[in-house]
């Protein structure tokens, strides 16, 4: 049984992420947003379901498709939006951009632009937790495309060998950039790759936020109890293109139409009464989420640009010679 407060939180976050991504897509079409945008429409249930099983100070890594993870992990909407706009008050002071939305104070180790960079970094955080006999949960998010990258395998192998109770979360969204997952997999199920590491793995419906939550919560307990890493594969569909502006010619319309029947937002709405939310409750949450997203975009619009020379700051903690030589 999930407590009422958590249910409200889950609904609020899942709508916030969807509205946020729809809004930024629209803005990117209408006017210029600097740089690349990778939206996560279709991944909301995974972002929220996993994060619902974590504490604020647990460690995660994300990727360039990070808006949903950042929102669910508790990063400030205003700061996320300002960062995407390249403003001084952005979450990374304008030095990261959409691909690198990350707030260390909210337990984010980083949002990496390099596929499969995250698992090894999270392995290190989990190793630190083990050595210091601390108990924070450590989760790495990555996509199905990352499972062919060596860094993932090296991290998986060491995690198993060293009995590190970290959670690998693979969002199997059907596409690695513009390549279909059913083509790039060598195994029947994606999670079969963990057999080489004798690693426990579970597969879940990535469109059902409560299923994601449930599986993740159980996995965290099991991993800590058995001192072992666990690999979770959540299947969903990437409605967004690889990036905003992607023609998505490789995604057949009939496939999209079929996936829409399992849209995570649609499922969440359908399930709402089951979780004790009536029509009014749901409407209230939806309106709040919309309002917060609107406010964040209004905020970002008013924010100052960084000074050009701000580019020279915080390359090092300490560097005894001038940086701009």
């Amino acid at each position, binding site marked *: 049984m999930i407590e009422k407060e958590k249910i409200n939180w889950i609904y609020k976050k899942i709508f916030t992420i969807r509205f946020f991504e729809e809004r930024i897509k629209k803005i990117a079409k209408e006017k210029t947003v600097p740089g690349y945008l990778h939206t996560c429409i279709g991944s909301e249930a995974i972002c929220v379901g996993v994060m619902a099983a974590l504490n604020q100070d647990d*460690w995660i890594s994300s990727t360039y498709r990070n808006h949903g993870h950042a929102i669910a992990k508790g990063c400030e909407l205003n700061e996320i939006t300002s960062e995407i706009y390249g403003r001084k008050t952005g979450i990374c002071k304008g*030095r990261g951009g959409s691909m690198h939305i990350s707030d260390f104070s909210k337990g984010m180790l980083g949002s*990496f632009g*390099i596929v499969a960079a995250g698992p090894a970094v999270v392995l290190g955080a989990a190793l630190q*937790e083990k050595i210091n006999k601390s108990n924070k949960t450590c989760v790495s998010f990555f996509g199905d495309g990352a499972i062919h990258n060596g860094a993932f*395998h090296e991290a998986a192998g060491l995690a198993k060998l060293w009995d590190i109770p970290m959670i690998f979360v693979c969002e199997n969204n059907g596409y690695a950039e513009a390549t279909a997952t059913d083509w790039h997999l060598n195994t029947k199920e994606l999670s079969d790759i963990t057999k080489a590491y004798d690693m426990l793995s579970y597969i879940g419906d990535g469109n059902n936020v409560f299923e994601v939550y449930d599986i993740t919560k159980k996995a965290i307990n099991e991993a800590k109890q058995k001192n072992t890493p666990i690999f979770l594969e959540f299947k969903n569909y990437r409605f967004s293109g690889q990036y905003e502006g992607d023609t998505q010619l490789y995604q057949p319309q009939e496939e999209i139409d079929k996936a829409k029947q399992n849209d995570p937002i649609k499922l969440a709405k359908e399930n709402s009464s089951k979780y004790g939310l009536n029509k009014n409750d749901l409407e209230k949450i939806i309106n709040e989420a919309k309002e917060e997203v609107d406010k964040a975009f209004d905020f970002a619009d008013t924010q100052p640009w960084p000074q050009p020379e701000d580019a020279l700051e915080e*390359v090092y903690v300490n560097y005894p010679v001038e940086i701009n030589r």
Partner: protein
Amino acid sequence: MTIKTVKDAINDALVQSFEEDKNVILMGEDIAGGKGREQYQGTQDAWGGPFGVTQGLYTKFGGERVRDTTIAEAGFFGAAIGAAMTGLRPIVELMYVDFAGVCFDQMMNQAAKVRYMFGGKQKVPMVVRTVVGAGFRAGSEHSQTLYSLYTHIPGLKVVAPYDAYDAKGLLLSSIKDDDPVIFMEHKRLYMTSCEVPDDLKPIPIGKGRIRREGTDVTIIAIQRMNLFAEEAADELEKINISCEIVDPRTYSPLDEELIFQSVKKTGKVIVVDESNPKCSLASEISSLISEKCFSDLKAAVIKITAPHTPVPFSPPMEDFYIPSTKKIIDAVKKLKDV
């Protein structure tokens, strides 16, 4: 005062750092050795790395802090980054710098950039200890120096000590440093020795050292090249040519002021670098000098480097590849006549 080899000085610095700070850990391939054969006597700590530099640490501090890894540099380098961000001070061993390619992403894109890219909230206090250098008949994939590869990357610090004194002092400060440091150990210097005080204080990163004062020509020597510079200076002294030897010791940050002061004094400069010549430390230092000290120069800067080839295996070819004392002497004589 005790006479120490570079190898022992590094081991001393590691032991001292482990004793001073419980957050210091070491990860690498066979840094202990004998993993998986603990049940047999005498197998534990069998290697201490291929050069025996870390020998004894596993026995002294245990497998939790001294962790033999699989041959998976991307994995344990990434782990060092995450561990560093969350409170440990990991030291990772890259067995040979020639293996940089398999874990360069971790250093170039993650260790170097997370602080900057994520808004200055994180720090990555990790050290990469790695072995560089030709002269071991080790062939093209176990002999490079690659100093400039890491020096090029903003966010990384690069340290390359020549003698045991600097090796200990600079490793102590590298481990205490809050930024990622690449600490390069030259395989041909491990068994060289000098006096190292037992209570040596950490040497600040970014401070070079004048190894010999002189008036006629400045020789800026990188790591092992200090050996040849000293030999050349001894020879040249016999014919009344006075050489000043500058050892920058650290390459990012670089003690530019120390170099410029010496250039102002002599007006004649030779830079000796064991690396390949293109985009090397030699070319960087030479360009800095011409930019900042042009009016002090009495002649163009001479660079003595390896040729633009991989490191060859066969002794006559490898000896030809490495800059030599003779090449330095010839260059100094050429400059003296200007």
